[in-house]
């Protein structure tokens, strides 16, 4: 089991890569998955390994809500933050109801993510 700080599940490859590169510069270990299935697969194989998960709502193979449901089954403890370019109020309600930690609209500042991580770590510790 490989311990990481943040798992990014987003089909915007460049965005995901750029974000993970930026986080790496800040000594935050990242792992990026570009579709729902590989994200779920990773969580399945590394349950409890991620400190927090950033999940996009619209993925090519399935909806973010479906991915969220699977993650919550496999690893109920990990906080999942939804980051989306466009989410309706209904989507937000649905995600929060399914146990998402927060619903964040893109673009999102790096500081916000690092703060979130610190916060989660603080809680974990």
């Amino acid at each position, binding site marked *: 089991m490989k311990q990481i700080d943040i798992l990014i599940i987003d089909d915007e490859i460049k965005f995901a890569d*750029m974000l993970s*590169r*930026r986080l790496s510069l*800040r000594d935050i270990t990242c792992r990026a998955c570009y579709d729902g299935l590989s994200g779920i697969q990773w969580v399945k194989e590394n349950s409890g390994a991620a400190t927090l998960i950033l999940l996009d709502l619209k993925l090519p193979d399935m909806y973010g809500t479906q991915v969220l449901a699977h993650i919550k089954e496999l690893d109920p403890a990990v906080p999942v933050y939804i980051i989306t370019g466009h989410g309706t109020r*209904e989507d937000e309600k649905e995600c929060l109801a399914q146990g998402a930690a927060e619903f964040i609209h893109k673009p999102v*500042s790096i500081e916000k993510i690092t703060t979130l991580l610190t916060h989660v770590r603080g809680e974990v510790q």
Partner: protein
Amino acid sequence: MIRTPQMLQKQEWLAFLFHRHNAHLASFHTFSNYPRIWIISIIILAVTSLSPLVMATLINNRLIHKSVDSELVLQTDRVTSNAKRSVRFFLEERLNALRFVVNELPYYSLIDNEHLTKILINLKLGFGGFTDLSIIDSDGSQVAYAGPFNLEGKNYKTQSWFKQSMEKDNFISEVFTGYRDVPHIIIAVRSQNAYGRYYLLRATLDTQRLMDTVLSYKSNFHTDIFLINHTGILQTPSTNYGKIFTPTQIDIPAFSDTTQVITPENNKDKSYVVGYSYIATEAVTTPFILMVHKKKSEVMGTWLNLGKTFNWIIGFCCLVMMVIITLVSTYMVNQLFLADQSKAETMLKMEQSQQLACIGQLSAGIAHEINNPLALINETTGYLKDLYHYKDTPRDDKEIIELLNDILEAVSRCGTITSQLLGFVRQFDVQISSVNVEQLITGILSFHKKETEYKGIHVTTAIAPDVPDIKTDRGKLQQILLNLINNAFQAIEVNGCLDITVSHLPPNTISIEIKDTGCGISEENLQRIHEPFFSTKKERKGTGLGLSITYGLVKKLQGSIRVESSEGVGTIFTVTLPVKLQKEDEA
């Protein structure tokens, strides 16, 4: 002008005739020409309700006329027959009396004036109507005479009645004046004396008696009964034709020894019937034709008056019915118009709110499309900043340029989206412009790019090469296509197909076919899809306005919309539009 509900409640009388034309509202009206509906409804109601009445009245009048006619014919026939019998009897009786005298008495006693006077007195006493008697020998000389006139010694050889009477045993003359200058009739019988020579016993009859006999059958003012001779000269006075001896110009009726009743063709309105009979005694024919003219008004008087009253009542009823029909039609069409008007106004409001909803929908799509590249720009510029901040060594030029290119690319993505967005800005301006349908469709589809990818929808657009740019309202066409394409996307499950075909139907129409392999629409729902607020979408997902608004918009663009669908197979929407939108709807 949108009216408030309070204004709508005040239902204006004849609103449909005097309403101001509003092109926006008119496109939502169910009917376009209310005055025409009004007139047609009045005509149909009037024809259906009044025609039985008019028919019944006509039939009734006809029946009355028929029965009156037959009654009149019967009456005339009776009067004519009776009068004929009386005249005939009058003449026959006198002729027979003369015959009796010549048979009974020898010639020598007849030529005795005194004896002849006695016979005359007896005849006057027994039969009446005799004026004088005379014996005329075969030379035409008057041999004996009894009577008030001094006619002794007269010679009648040249007179036509003498010639005629010498040829036959019995003779009846027409009415004439002769030597004495007084109208009279001659009847004569021929006999032979002891020497075998012919002689005549001639009597002159008083025409007054004959007239009285004839006139006794004149029941009232409407009956004209008179005698004419075979040339049409009056033999007794007539109410219509005047005094005795007046030529009548009557068409001499065809000979008949029985009574005939005819309706002469030349009489105005066939207002009288004519009964006639040629008068002949058993022994000899006479020059008389008995004519009876009977005016219909006699018999019809009562009927005609009743008929007139009846016709007035019917006429009045028709008038009242026409007024009622007009008022009812006006009220109904007015109500229809007001209902339609209020529906149209609601539809217009709905269209406007739908337009707003559409903006919302577009904004959401645009936000999604823009936020992703913005996030990328954010991360990339952030990374650039991080590179300078976290690493001291000079940056690899290549990487920086790559990062800057990424930013430019993301900015360009945003630019594309905003330019498409501009296409929607003019949505509410109603104006005709040249529209390239292909570009329009491509623009709309680009908003569904993500959905297409996620759902794996196979989208094809086939634009026929001869499709021209059309002159229409861009915004409205955009909304129509957006609505239909949105519906198609919502209907299609994963891995479906959406085919958009545009073809040119020369000379002046284009057809846009949007075919999806979605869930389809049931036959029952198919009839209702254009109804406002009809939706099959579960909960808050649809307003049920999309298609009804689309229908209104297509109508506004002078086009038509057709839908074919089978459940589980898919739906085809076909919008047909004119290549050039006519000016009238421009306002």
